[in-house]
């Protein structure tokens, strides 16, 4: 199988492109049914596992709580939630399949060595619906890697898939390059009887993002791995695989503007928007900061900021609110007057004072309570602030800069319930499979439900692994 025939050729039964959650679930499932499997992972070992290394939980349906999950989350409720966030933009068959199969994931992952913990501080609202990994996504991944290694799966790190040889929707082989970031890249060919694409979306490919978003995409920060550049996705689309979703659909949130360009992960999130006002580069407000609880709104703010001049926003809060939200990884700017704060933020101080004064005068209601939709709102202000509106008048004042942070993109390959890719002409591929982000758009036409990214990856990873192994054995 792995005998390196004419120099640089290796053969496996199943080739998995991408070593994140989806790829590992596929590799483990295939290996367990006795076929030879290799995983080609673009990142060096220390960075393996793509966006999965940044995750913390997975949304799973269950009939009753289990000591860690605090209560039941029936399939129907999960389905309702999905329909609500996607506004019905989903493939119903695949959505039902995903949610039904999510019931098995707790046990499946536990068998692969994954442990769980109660929902983390600051995420109480997910304690019933989402299974949190003990130690986070990287710990979860390490367990999957250990299991896969013990099953004999071969890993090629620091190796990316560069081109696919696909004849009429049938995978023959692919070309991969190892040590591709060094001056001595090594090209080789890998043959396999089935190909599983689990190489994530294209969120780290700024050029591709620019095709959809225009030059604004230059200012986007990528919350996860720099390795998800969509090379596999593009090859597949070029080889005649049908696509789902459009390139502009993605999960985008507002994050701390000082976050690194890539891999800033969870710590760069800011939860203070509902407690203050958000101004754009011109010192103007542009959206209702108190429309709803932050966990229900944070995913629209990425787009809101992306639409502002220079793709930047500035939250201003005062000392009344500084301890009401999860601590930020970078300290806020701080000043004793709004004018001084504006100087530090680098925006026009007259505009800032004017906007804040207008806002302060429009504040009504006095029963501030950040745990409910309280009565603190603005009157005759455009845009309004519907809840948690309190005058910003108690120094010191604080400010954070916000930028759009892209979590992952939804444009992907179209698949059926066996995780097989569907071709442009409507036929089903014989041996091309997909799992994870690269096909999440089948289920998530738009919107997002916390924890469903991992669910889709594990469910379709397992399906892809077992169907691929089955066609190999036949």
């Amino acid at each position, binding site marked *: 199988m792995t005998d390196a025939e004419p120099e640089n050729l290796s053969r496996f039964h199943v080739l998995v492109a991408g070593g994140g959650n989806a790829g590992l679930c596929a590799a483990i499932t295939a290996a367990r049914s006795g076929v030879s499997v290799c995983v080609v992972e673009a990142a060096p070992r*220390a*960075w393996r596992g793509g966006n999965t*290394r*940044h995750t*913390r939980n997975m949304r799973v349906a269950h009939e009753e709580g289990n000591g860690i999950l605090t209560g039941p989350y029936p399939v129907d409720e999960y389905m309702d939630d999905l329909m609500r966030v996607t506004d019905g933009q989903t493939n119903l068959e695949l959505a039902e399949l995903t949610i039904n199969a999510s019931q098995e994931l707790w046990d499946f992952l536990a068998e692969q060595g994954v*442990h769980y*913990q*109660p929902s*983390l*501080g*600051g995420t109480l609202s997910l304690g019933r619906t989402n299974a*949190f990994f*003990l*130690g*986070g*996504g*990287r*710990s979860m991944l*390490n*367990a999957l890697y*250990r299991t896969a290694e013990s099953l004999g799966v071969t890993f090629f790190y620091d190796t990316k898939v560069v081109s696919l040889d696909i004849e009429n929707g049938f995978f023959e082989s692919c070309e991969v390059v190892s040590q591709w970031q060094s001056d001595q890249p090594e090209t080789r060919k890998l043959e396999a009887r089935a190909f599983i694409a689990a190489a994530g979306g294209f969120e780290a490919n700024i050029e591709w993002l620019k095709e959809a978003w225009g030059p604004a995409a230059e200012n986007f920060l990528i919350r996860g791995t720099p390795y998800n550049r969509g090379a596999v996705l593009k090859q597949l689309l070029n080889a005649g695989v049908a696509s789902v979703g459009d390139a502009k659909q993605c999960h985008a949130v507002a994050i701390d503007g000082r976050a*690194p360009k890539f*891999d800033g*992960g*969870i*710590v760069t*999130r800011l939860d203070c928007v509902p407690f203050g006002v958000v101004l754009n580069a011109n010192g103007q407000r542009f959206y209702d900061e108190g429309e709803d609880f932050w966990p229900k709104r944070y995913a629209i703010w990425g787009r809101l900021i992306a639409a502002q001049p220079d793709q930047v926003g500035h939250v201003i809060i005062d000392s009344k609110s500084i*301890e009401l939200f*999860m*601590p*930020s*990884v970078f300290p806020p700017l701080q000043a004793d007057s709004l004018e001084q704060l504006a100087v530090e933020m680098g925006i026009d101080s007259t505009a800032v004072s004017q906007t804040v004064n207008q806002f302060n005068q429009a504040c009504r209601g006095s029963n501030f309570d950040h745990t409910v939709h309280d009565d603190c709102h603005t009157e005759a202000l455009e845009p309004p602030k519907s809840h948690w509106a309190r005058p910003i008048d108690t120094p010191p004042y604080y400010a954070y800069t916000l930028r759009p942070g892209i979590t992952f993109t939804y444009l992907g390959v179209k698949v059926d319930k066996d995780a097989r890719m569907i071709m442009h002409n409507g036929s089903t591929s014989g041996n091309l499979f997909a799992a994870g982000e690269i096909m999440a758009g089948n289920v998530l036409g738009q919107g997002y439900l916390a924890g469903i990214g991992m669910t889709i990856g594990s469910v379709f990873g397992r399906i892809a692994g077992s169907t691929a192994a089955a066609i190999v054995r036949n």
Partner: protein
Amino acid sequence: MKTSIPIKEISVPKAAPSNAQSEAVRQMGVCNACRYCEGLCAVFPAMELRRQLTGPDVDYLANLCHSCGACHFDCQYAQPHEFAIEIPAVMANLREETYARHVWPGALAPVFERNGIWIASITAISVALFLVGFIVFTDASVLFASGSEEGAFYRVMPHNAMAGLFGAVFLYSIVAICLGVRSFWHSTGSQGSVSWRSLWQASKNAATLRYLDGGGMGCMHESEEPSNRKRIAHHFTFYGFLLCLASTTSGTLMHYVFGVQAPYPWWSPTVVLGTIGGIGLIIGPVGLLRVKREQIDALKAKPSRGMDVAFLYMLIATSVTGLLLLVLRATPAMGLLLAVHLGVVFALFISMPYGKFVHGLYRYAALMRHAHEQAQHKA
């Protein structure tokens, strides 16, 4: 009903944070925004109770850390990530710094730097002094006489001298250690009274090394593959040590209460406990030395002060010489062996406040504070 042990409040001058403290504050700041490791051990929940961390806070957290390695492998911000989060290494370094920060008398703080060399020198000097002392103060016929009959040891060194010397140095060490731990306890701020329940909780957690298992994932001290080796070796060491302590106590009782003089017969509690304990105190430290050698780089305190290794060799030397004395006490080697053994034990006692020995008490104090504040937090 809540029984409480009141703890007196004292005010501690605020010192400027050390580099290790500032680095720990920085890294814990990232953890506080992340919290993925919340379930791994006591460090993270304890950190989350503090929005602004100070130097003494991180000293406390460092002593809660058991160096299990889990958060190193689990951290998405570990090097090569630019945030360069290395909690276990920072904590290991800070733990050793804390011992120096609170040592009594403070002038001896430098002993913690290059601790290995200090401990080795103290041991060598102490053994040499006993040898010379014996040769000068006893006549050769006694020194090279064998003796397993009652009182034989005390012909080499009179009992009162032995008891007086060792009693005094032991007492000194206990006082010094208590003063150090007390200073550590108060530096993180007084919290009123600690309940018996917290004490019990801390004792259980210490006795079982509860936080050495990555929250259930297992200890990853030597590699990413979880293993129980460090825990087992530590149990041998700790319980071996306790048995040896019990042996010494029973010897003291035999002497003063029952008027029987050492050496004691093989079936006496003193010999039985001492033998089992001594064997544990060889297997354990040897095991710890081995896992220490395999310890992954990311867990190591940098700079290395040689503290662990020195302490482990000291324990091994104590138990090996003790057991040899037991086996060879009927031969002419007894006198010299006694000198060597007493020399080593003396060095062990005198260096207790100035080496790794104190980690147990700092750890216990930290666990107690943790149990206490978690109980308060839940209430």
